[in-house]
């Protein structure tokens, strides 16, 4: 187990390093930021001064090493737009993003998992078919369409909720519901197929055959085993808490990370985009490691084997 975890940790560090490298090179090979920030007809002296000030006149690999070195010390550069440290700019937006993604995540769990379990236990019933139909919609309706339809109904037609902004707590409802519904549909589908897979196993029949109540079979044998694959998808959802709201935040003008990303991308604010990329990668990687630890706890086979998979 320990060796397994060390391996995973090493891979996590590697992934982060890969993201830093990817971000750095993509962003730097893509064009001269001096030309973008100043206009193309700026005097050569000021372009030169700008490049010197941001270290853009050094060889690329020197810039890269300096970037990694600084990143390791928590210094991720300043925003080229307003001069403040990029990390500060990004961290300011984290609470707003979490304010909609965390409730949405809870909504997904509370609706998705029970619906999936219920559908699997009542296979081919009306409720099962309904769940499956809604969950197909969760895959095929893009979040911006769902968001706009909700706005059309609840803001334009009924006038119950604000269509955009973040002035009151009511503004958060539509973003949360948009994110939650789609996620719940996906989670229900995964939970259902995980449950069906487990219910088809011989040990379930054996447990029923030895005279256990169906309830006990489900609670003691089916649910713990179905929890293993479901954990993976839940872990992935935790990993996307920061990144998952790009489109929804843009639709609802919600002042979170996602909207900051879209605006920094159109402003070509290199430092801010890099910080967001790193933040996203770090959450994904952390969530993956947590999932691995939970696996070890859920699945005794993993705990005992020393070399993992």
């Amino acid at each position, binding site marked *: 187990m320990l060796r397994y975890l060390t391996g995973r940790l090493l891979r996590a560090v590697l*992934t982060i390093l890969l993201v830093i490298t990817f971000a750095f090179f993509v962003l730097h090979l893509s064009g001269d930021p001096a030309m973008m920030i100043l206009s193309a007809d700026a005097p050569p002296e000021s372009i030169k001064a700008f490049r010197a000030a941001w270290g853009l006149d050094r060889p690329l690999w020197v810039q890269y090493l300096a970037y990694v070195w600084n990143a390791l010390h928590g210094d991720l550069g300043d925003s080229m737009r307003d001069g403040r440290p990029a990390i500060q700019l990004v961290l300011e937006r984290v609470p707003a993003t979490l304010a909609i993604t965390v409730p949405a995540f809870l909504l997904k769990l509370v609706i998705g998992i029970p619906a999936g379990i219920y559908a699997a236990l009542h296979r081919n019933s009306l409720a099962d078919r309904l769940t499956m139909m809604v969950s197909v919609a969760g895959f095929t309706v893009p979040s*911006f*369409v769902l968001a706009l339809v909700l706005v*059309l109904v609840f803001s334009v037609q009924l006038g119950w909720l604000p269509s955009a902004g973040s002035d009151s707590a009511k503004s958060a409802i539509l973003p949360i519901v948009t994110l939650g519904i789609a996620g719940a549909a996906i989670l229900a589908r995964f939970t259902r197929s995980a449950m069906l897979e487990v219910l088809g196993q011989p040990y379930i029949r054996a447990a029923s055959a030895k005279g256990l109540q169906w309830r006990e079979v489900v609670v003691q044998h089916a649910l713990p085993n179905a929890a293993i694959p479901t954990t993976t998808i839940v872990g992935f959802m935790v990993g996307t808490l920061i990144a*998952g709201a790009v489109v929804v935040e843009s639709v609802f003008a919600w002042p979170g990370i996602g909207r900051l990303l879209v605006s920094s991308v159109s402003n*070509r604010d290199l430092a801010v*985009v890099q910080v967001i990329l790193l933040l996203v990668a770090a959450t994904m990687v952390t969530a993956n490691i947590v999932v691995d630890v939970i696996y070890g706890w859920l699945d005794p086979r993993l705990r005992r084997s020393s070399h993992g998979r």
Partner: protein
Amino acid sequence: MGGKGRVRRFFEAWPPLTLLALGWIALMVIVAFGADVLAPYSFTALDLRARLHPPVLMGGTWTHPLGSDELGRDVLSRLIMSIRLSLLIAFFGTMIAAAFGTAMGFVAAHFRGKVEGVILMLIDFQASMPFLIIALAVLAFFGNNLALFVMLMGLNSWERYARIARGLTLSANEQGYAAAVRQLGASNLRVYGLHVLPNIASTLIVSMTITFPETILLESGLSFLGLGVQPPLTSLGNMVGYGREYLTRAPWIMLSPAAVIVLSTLSISIVGDWLRDRLDPTLR
């Protein structure tokens, strides 16, 4: 009895829902190919006297069956052009992903060792980052250019094909046939292209029915954010993004492209499920 039985057998092989989905896909393909002939107006033609006309179903006239937008452009004509561009982008994106991913899978399975390690690491990396974030970074920093955008759509799901191709090739190499043709002196290209590929094709085709709708959603999402297809070109996502500004006054601008996106992705998923059951019952 005989006639009835035949009808029932027909619908068992071709469920009505699948037929509807296939019909919708066929319609979309016809629209995409015949866009120039089918569009009643030029998609950029302005008619300032006919601004924000409602569609027929909302009390409008047949001059603009799906209504017109703020500049008096015909929504139906724009929709037809958008369907063409969105489908083209999704088609080429899916093809690039399938070709590149499958090739990477073959390479990994053929060379093993370090090469395989690197490819597996790239697969892990891709799977661990939400692609929308990567796409946003790449797109905005390289600027907007249709060719680059299509390439980017192709990068979206290559790892799925690579993983499948690698796994299936590894097991194919264990089986007799690959070794047999190799013994007969076939080149690697021949072994993988003519012998392994046809054997794993059905699984790859089923994967395409999963990645094609994903690509449509990714394209429309980026275009919706204003970071995908750029005006004067128009795609389904662009139309929804533009229509969002007129949500209160002219919801029809946004509703018809949104409906096309949903119906198309839904249809391809339904056909995909059906194909999976027919071609490859082992895949779930």
